[in-house]
């Protein structure tokens, strides 16, 4: 008797991803789609796609989707959730979108405790536009606009969004995860599920930051990129839960 252990989730459409070989966007898309399917909320979910590599996310998720202008996904999600409070609303944003041009939107959405979920994909670079330095680029990391590597005196230190947002009272659940190994991918899925459960319980803003790779713009093979993430990103962006609903009064 054969039992299916793993198959493509119904939460994704049939369309093949356009992402580069080894890009972890595909893994993260799948985790979100699996969680929506397992929670049985696909039919009442509304996703908000960002600008960046994942701008075409609306083609891949098998639920209602909305496109937002650059960085404004939290503002659009706020509107959708307030008008349709019974829907499950999530934004899917990269670091160029959330931590740079959209910082004001995400900070104020978290401050107001808007009851939607944000999936924040941090790959420490601007992917779609060709590998420019992002606010999350590590010191010393090379980018097309930092050919000698990011310099602290010139560009400052990278921003840690999870730590920053966890200081806000409106944020109910903040966790940072990584997709560098099967074990961490399973942990990431658990965190994403918890974030959506926090939303379903109406406890406030929830966000999962996912450390991701960009083999193309880092100039590495997918295998080297995973190793680079483990050696460089995880020490600067520690994994773990920064806030859970139990701490929120």
């Amino acid at each position, binding site marked *: 008797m054969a039992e299916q252990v793993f198959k493509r989730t119904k939460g994704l459409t049939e369309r093949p991803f356009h992402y580069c070989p080894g890009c972890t966007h595909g*893994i993260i898309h799948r985790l979100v789609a699996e969680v929506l399917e397992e929670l049985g909320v696909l039919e009442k979910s509304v996703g908000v796609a960002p600008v960046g590599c994942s701008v075409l996310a609306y083609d891949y998720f098998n639920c209602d989707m909305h496109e937002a202008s650059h960085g404004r996904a939290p503002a659009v999600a706020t509107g959708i959730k307030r008008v349709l409070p019974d829907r499950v609303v999530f934004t899917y944003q990269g670091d160029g979108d959330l931590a740079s041009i959209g910082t004001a939107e995400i900070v104020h959405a978290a401050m107001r405790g808007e009851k939607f979920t944000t999936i924040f994909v941090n790959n420490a670079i601007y992917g779609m536009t060709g590998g420019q330095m992002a606010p999350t680029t590590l010191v010393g990391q090379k980018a097309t606009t930092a050919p000698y590597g990011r310099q602290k005196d010139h560009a400052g230190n990278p921003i840690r969004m999870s730590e920053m947002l966890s200081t806000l009272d409106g944020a109910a659940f903040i966790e940072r995860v990584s997709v560098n190994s099967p074990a961490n991918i399973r942990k990431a899925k658990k965190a994403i599920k918890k974030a959506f459960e926090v939303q379903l319980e109406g406890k406030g803003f929830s966000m999962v930051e996912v450390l991701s790779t960009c083999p193309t713009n880092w100039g590495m093979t997918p295998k080297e990129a995973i190793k680079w993430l483990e050696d460089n990103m995880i020490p600067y962006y520690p994994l773990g839960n920064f806030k859970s609903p139990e701490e929120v009064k």
Partner: protein
Amino acid sequence: MAKVKGKVTFKEELCKGCELCTTVCPVNIVKMAEDRINVKGYHPATVYEMEKCIACGNCATICPDTVIEVEREKEDK
């Protein structure tokens, strides 16, 4: 004792040859098919020694393009 046997299937036309699946297999049977090229122009991932598969699902978990499906067969020995 029941022995767990697995079977993985690859939707080869979706594979982009990133090789991440080959790094996580505990029994080291996921290989790139160097003898053929798929419609995207990559050597797809494949398994030649299916009888060694233990159905752990690691390869499918890390695959960014949902190329891999895993089945588990249980048989009494």
